[in-house]
């Protein structure tokens, strides 16, 4: 049923049950918001979106108030503007005045609101509570002084990720966002996915920076710095520097990385191809015996951590193959550079990821020599490009030179939820039938959806596969499996909604349009690329011949696998 309401004198029809904010967004009236995120349930905590409704004595929050038939709404009346300004002034009362030195300078929403509502002086002054910055976690850093208690981080962590590692603690003016027993993020349920960072409007949550270490390594003549980057990086760089996201962008990126001082650059998709080969072999061993199925993919470190810590009963199901990042580091250090005569302790492997959990993963995979020495997020890479004065307009695309820059488009698809499965199935199909899948594309596993299921026939035998993204959805699926669902053979999980294209290390303030752009970039590569399957990648064949052995052989297990049962619990 349609309702007639009036917004700023304009007649508008709205559906029953819609919030005022939904209607305002539809008709293009912009009101400022702070605690609101479209993917979360509204909380109405910050009151920034208040509007005036005629006949009501108080202002109502547009994000959580539903439209009603008689409503006459004023969104920018003097009373509303004054209330919003006061709200910002109150938020600033105990906010540190260090915008110039803040990580979020320029991307801070509080800064934006203060500018939008023209706050020009500090009206209220309240005491700064002495707080400690939580720096113990290798992935995420939390500065409670900058927190405005909007609750976006805790709602993302609870509703989207499902672990509730941070939550409101205390009451009234003593409320703060904290961890249980104030133990900090490194010692609680946190899976390090970093979704809270991209949800945070201020600089309260940021990644732990590895950038200073990388800059130092680049300037150290003793070291041989090399870089590996996730398949989501080219599209993200194109987006950030307003470049066309086409085939050239990959080579432009390589050229930029070379200019920064990296001696060699590698696309992690190569290691994703290795991951596929191993995982396909493991699946084909388990499938006929119907043992330890469904097989869970292990490329997402946040998911791996969740399963190891919270659902140890499913550890056997987890693929023992290391994530592409760790495989790539191993291959670089133990094979590529060592066959060029460079000692592995001189090689400094930097990895550029859309992810903060990868930082912790690299840190904790430490048997003497770490495969990856430093992990930076895409945000850190963008900063580094600016810091080192790289100008894309004057760069020539670097021609693909070495064999190790070849990777299949299957490996690139790892960047999006469903992509890992798609690549994996293509190789499973080949390994069991001897023929290539045609068409290679699996439509059911594509698009921006939290859960994608597909049914594929291999040698007339059906297999059911599910790709879930957003860890909370994976937890729901685990519960289904625990309650008896047994028709699934492979489950791919990515902790961030829609996978790495929306990872915790991606640009702050990405909207659905940019997500679609990043998704399209990966699918386009798959359309255009000649080598669409991991097993068709000549480099892989070469690597398996010269460095590794047959997929899932003892040698490969030693180099590429991880024993999840040995991981320590929190």
């Amino acid at each position: 049923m349609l309702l007639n309401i009036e917004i700023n004198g304009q007649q508008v029809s709205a559906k029953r049950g819609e919030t005022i904010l939904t209607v305002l967004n539809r008709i293009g009236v912009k009101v400022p918001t702070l605690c609101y995120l479209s993917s979360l349930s509204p909380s109405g905590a910050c009151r920034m979106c208040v509007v005036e409704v005629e006949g009501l004595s108080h202002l109502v929050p547009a994000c959580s108030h539903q439209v009603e038939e008689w409503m006459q709404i004023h969104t920018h009346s003097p009373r509303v503007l004054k209330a919003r300004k006061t709200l910002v002034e109150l938020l600033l009362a105990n906010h540190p005045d260090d915008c110039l030195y803040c990580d979020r300078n320029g991307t801070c929403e509080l800064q934006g609101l203060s500018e939008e509502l023209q706050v020009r002086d500090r009206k209220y002054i309240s005491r700064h509570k002495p707080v400690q910055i939580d720096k113990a976690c290798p992935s995420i850093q939390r500065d409670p002084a900058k927190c405005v208690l909007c609750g976006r981080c805790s709602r993302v962590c609870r509703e989207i990720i499902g672990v509730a590692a941070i939550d409101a603690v205390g009451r009234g003016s003593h409320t703060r966002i904290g961890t249980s027993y104030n133990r900090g993020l490194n010692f609680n349920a946190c899976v390090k996915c970093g979704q809270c960072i991209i949800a945070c409007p201020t600089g309260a949550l940021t990644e732990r920076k590895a950038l200073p270490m990388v800059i130092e390594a680049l300037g150290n003549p003793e070291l041989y710095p090399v870089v590996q980057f996730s398949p989501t990086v080219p599209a993200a760089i194109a987006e950030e520097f307003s470049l066309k996201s086409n085939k050239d962008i990959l080579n432009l990126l390589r050229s930029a990385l070379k200019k920064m001082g990296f001696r060699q650059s590698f696309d992690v998709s190569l290691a994703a191809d290795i991951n596929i080969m191993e995982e396909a072999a493991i699946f084909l061993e388990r499938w006929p015996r119907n043992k330890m199925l469904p097989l869970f993919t292990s490329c997402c470190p946040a998911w791996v951590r969740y399963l190891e810590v919270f659902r140890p009963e499913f550890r056997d199901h987890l693929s023992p193959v290391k994530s592409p990042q760790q495989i790539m580091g191993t291959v670089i250090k133990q094979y590529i550079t060592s066959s060029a005569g460079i000692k592995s302790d001189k090689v400094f492997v930097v990895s550029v990821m859309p992810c903060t959990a990868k930082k912790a993963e690299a840190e904790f995979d430490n048997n003497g020599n770490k495969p990856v020495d430093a992990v930076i997020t895409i945000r850190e890479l963008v900063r580094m490009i600016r810091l080192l004065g790289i100008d894309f307009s004057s760069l020539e695309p670097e021609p693909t030179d070495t064999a190790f820059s070849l990777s299949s488009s299957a490996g690139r698809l790892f960047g999006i939820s469903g992509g890992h499965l798609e690549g994996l199935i293509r190789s499973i199909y080949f390994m069991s039938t001897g023929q290539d899948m045609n068409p290679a594309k699996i439509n059911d596993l594509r698009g921006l959806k939290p859960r994608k299921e597909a049914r594929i026939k291999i040698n007339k035998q059906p297999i059911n596969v599910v790709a879930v993204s957003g860890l909370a959805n994976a937890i729901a699926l685990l519960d289904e499996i625990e309650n008896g669902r047994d028709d699934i053979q492979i489950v791919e999980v990515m902790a961030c909604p829609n996978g790495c294209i929306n990872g915790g290390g991606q640009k702050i303030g990405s909207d659905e349009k940019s997500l679609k752009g990043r998704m399209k970039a990966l699918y386009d590569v798959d359309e255009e690329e000649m080598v669409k399957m991991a097993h068709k990648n000549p480099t892989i064949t070469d690597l398996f011949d010269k460095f590794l052995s047959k997929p899932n052989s003892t040698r490969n297990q030693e180099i590429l696998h991880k024993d999840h049962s040995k991981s320590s619990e929190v």
Partner: protein
Amino acid sequence: MDHIFEKYALRKPENLIPLLQELQKENGYLTDEIVEKVSLHLHIPTNRIYGVATFYDQFRFRQRGLYHIQVCRGTSCYLCSSESYLKEIEKLLKVQAGSVTRDKRFSLETVNCMGGCSQSPVIRINDTYYHHLSVADLSEVLRIFREKTE
């Protein structure tokens, strides 16, 4: 403590507060282990439980002293300058409100209202209520309790 858990059905988050209340009654305060057990029992993340429990004044995360002192800070007692009583006790026992003395004999906390507004300011030590005291009387009251244990 298992008998308390048995009374509450698994995975029912609405049982959180009564369960915590009973466990606290049994144990005196909520330990990390208790919170973790509740988390597994009701399928609520520990952090959520900690958030809920810190919202209410009734839940404690530290052991009480042998003598638990509650100083009322409700409106009426507040107006009757219960703060000076609180400060005096803090000075005498060398503890802050919300903590326990080193010898674990006294713990001190503030509460919002004990329902004795006409007798303000009200102070309670274990089950004994004190009212109409002067600040100077406090050292005598505490001395009696101290001697009880020696």
